[in-house]
């Protein structure tokens, strides 16, 4: 996924995924972490494209995607805002969790680990923390 950052520096992207979907993930992450709060106003397409150093058309697609996911709403003449519907954000949270776990399960299977031994390791990690 996209690296840490957030400060004024052009974003780095992984090579195997469309840039728009990496930006969607980045913003979803900011919503889940609470960096973007319900009702927050988002940057304009132009401002955001300048911030991340990405084509305006790509950012337009990102905003369209977020709107389709019901995570943002556009108010005419005012701009785009993070949804105030907590249910949507909860839904995103659950989806993201499942998606991350699935990715993780795929990668442990690729190395031939069993779920059981991984769960043990996870538990140990969790306790020692």
């Amino acid at each position, binding site marked *: 996924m996209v690296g840490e950052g957030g400060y004024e520096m052009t974003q780095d*992207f992984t*090579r195997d995924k469309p840039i728009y979907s990496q930006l969607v993930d980045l913003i979803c992450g900011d919503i889940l972490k609470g960096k973007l709060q319900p009702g927050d106003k988002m940057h304009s397409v132009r401002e955001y494209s300048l911030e991340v150093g990405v084509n305006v058309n790509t950012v337009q697609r990102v905003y369209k995607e977020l709107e389709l996911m019901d995570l943002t709403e556009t108010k005419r003449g005012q701009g785009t805002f993070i949804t105030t519907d907590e249910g949507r954000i909860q839904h995103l949270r659950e989806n993201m969790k499942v998606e991350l776990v699935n990715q993780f399960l795929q990668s442990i299977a690729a190395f031939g680990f069993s779920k059981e031994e991984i769960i043990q390791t996870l538990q140990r990690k969790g306790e020692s923390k």
Partner: protein
Amino acid sequence: MIQLQHVAYNYQRQEVLKDISLSFPIGQIIGIAGENGSGKSTLLKIIAGIQRPKKGTISLHKESLSRRHADIIAYLPDMDLFYSFYTTKELFAFYASQFSDFSIHKALEVANFLEVDVNVKLKKLSKGNRGRAKMAATLGRNTAYYVMDEPFSGLDPIVRESLLKGLIRYTNMEEQSIILSTHELHEVEPILDQLIVLKQGEVIAQDDLETIRFETNQDAVSWMKYVTKEKVK
């Protein structure tokens, strides 16, 4: 929309471009990549109306293109073609005298954004700052198309990043398009809509960047290497 149909170019017996058909819509940033000598500069000069194709046609909004179209297309050459005793400000004044669409106000704004001291003579500027001054002069023009030959070449990563941001900031993707050639694909990729790969005067591949990533799971650099190799076989 700029349209090239079956365009060919040669210097005497050396074929530089062979049977090129391409179209460039408004509202996109289009990259042209390819090894040295693949014909990128010649193609850009033909698009800019500076060179005429030996065969084929080029049209803009269905009208055939000629040198007069210099007022619809702003061209940034890869060489330093400016009087080196000019300061950047004087360069802008020169541009204003040549192009009725040139806005000194906008050029100064771009120069300020790129942090160029406009009162220093071009020859006294570092290469990076000369690249920035050239970019500011080009973006100072208000044209439907910007055609830029290697705008980032030989510049350090910080200059390249500021130029990329200048391009995003000072063009309007609803009314304008940028066509640029580059070797710095990795850095330029995030601002591109589509990429055209040339090899030995032919277009060997052309696609949207998002499609390339989505369908091939490759970024522009590895995709370009892949299509260039495929062509050799």
